[in-house]
């Protein structure tokens, strides 16, 4: 068998070897610059730990106003956090995107916070389930490096920041990237050394948080590439889009993968991506029709979920019918598991054919 062997200057070698059977094979490198990575890993399947990194799935289908410290979700799996009122931004799915993508997540500053107070932080996050980072071995001496890659377009130029953090929020590693041109899509990659300390859960609880900072007080900013137990959500010296009213920040193609090389974005089929999202959020629709038995008697409906959820979800009715015998105020959840919901309606009068419907949302976010 003919082969070509390339030896490194100090150690290591690469062998390209022709097969021993008849046929012609071509190793073709495309014109685009990049790195062709090979690893000793057993499998590349589902390499991206981020769900909906291309921002295509938007079951909530609306604009979220981020004006609180709590969690507010927008496109599936992506959430915003801010402060009570000093600065406000919105999140929404957008069709502005770089080549090979159709959507992005757009943040727009609607109230600028020109002087960010200590402890304040404005950020876009994704919470990653512990099961999906278990093989990274973080919190052990075998911790693997990860590489974050994403497309970003910002009206504010300069050094921006973010961080990764654990679920307990006591391990942080800030990262930085540079926006060179305003309102222009740019591709960024950041490699982060695995954390050999701290607690990183590997079950269905919150395993890893990815933060894109839109602004933070100085106490929330730290040194890029350095693990710390102090809360850090951005990088020291970063520019803060939240300080500019009307500033826009788009992000898409977000990928977090094991290793030190950013590989092309893992484009999943729409149905696959939707199913991954429905583990955390999905809608339901229940309907019943029959004879209303009488005052106070229940009619119940069971629905099985499209995808088993991460844990038993919170149920919120958002729509449905309200009739004379079945006013919507009489609807209630009877029982829920991670795979099904039983809801019921109590009649206020009986004796005739009637029906009711209820629709809403199921949330098992992290």
């Amino acid at each position, binding site marked *: 068998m003919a082969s070509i062997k390339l030896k490194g200057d100090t150690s290591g070698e690469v062998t390209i070897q022709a097969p021993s059977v008849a046929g012609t094979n071509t190793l073709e490198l495309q014109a685009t610059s990049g790195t062709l990575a090979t690893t000793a890993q057993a499998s590349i399947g589902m390499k991206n730990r981020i769900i909906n990194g291309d921002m295509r799935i938007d079951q909530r289908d609306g604009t979220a106003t981020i004006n609180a410290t709590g969690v507010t979700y927008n496109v599936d799996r992506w959430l915003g956090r801010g402060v009570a009122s000093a600065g406000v931004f919105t999140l929404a799915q957008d069709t502005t995107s770089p080549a090979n993508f159709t959507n992005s997540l757009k943040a727009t500053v609607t109230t600028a916070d020109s002087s960010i107070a200590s402890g304040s932080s404005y950020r876009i996050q994704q919470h990653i389930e512990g099961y999906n980072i278990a093989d990274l071995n973080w919190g052990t001496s075998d911790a693997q490096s990860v590489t974050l890659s994403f497309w970003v377009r910002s009206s504010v130029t300069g050094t921006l920041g973010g961080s990764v953090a654990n679920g307990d929020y006591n391990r942080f590693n800030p990262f930085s990237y540079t926006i060179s041109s305003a309102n222009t899509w740019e591709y960024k990659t950041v490699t982060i050394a695995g954390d050999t300390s701290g607690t990183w859960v590997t079950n269905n609880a919150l395993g890893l948080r990815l933060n894109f900072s839109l602004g933070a007080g100085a106490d929330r900013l730290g040194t890029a590439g350095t693990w710390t137990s102090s809360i850090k959500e951005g990088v020291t010296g970063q520019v803060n889009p939240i300080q500019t009213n009307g500033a826009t920040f788009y992000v898409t193609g977000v990928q977090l993968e094991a290793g030190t090389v950013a590989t092309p974005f893992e484009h999943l089929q729409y149905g696959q991506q939707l199913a991954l999202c429905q583990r955390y959020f999905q809608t339901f629709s229940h309907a019943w029709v029959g004879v209303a038995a009488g005052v*106070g008697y229940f009619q119940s409906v069971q629905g099985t979920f499209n995808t088993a959820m991460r844990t038993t979800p*919170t*149920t919120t009715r958002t729509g449905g019918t309200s009739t004379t015998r079945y006013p919507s105020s009489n609807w209630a*959840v009877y029982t829920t598991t991670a795979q099904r919901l039983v809801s019921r309606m*109590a009649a206020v009068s009986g004796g005739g054919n009637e029906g009711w419907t209820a629709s809403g949302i199921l949330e098992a976010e992290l």
Partner: protein
Amino acid sequence: MITYKLGNPEGVIKINGDVKNYIPTDEANTDYQEYLEWLAEGNTPEPADEETE
């Protein structure tokens, strides 16, 4: 103002104006975690609605 009412037969109901969130008794559910924090602050939920039939 947010209040909680015990569910019937299970869980708790978070009431915020006209919005009712039916929260399961599941410690992995983040809404239930918030409810436990609310209880730990010394609050008490309203009793569950009684069956009428």
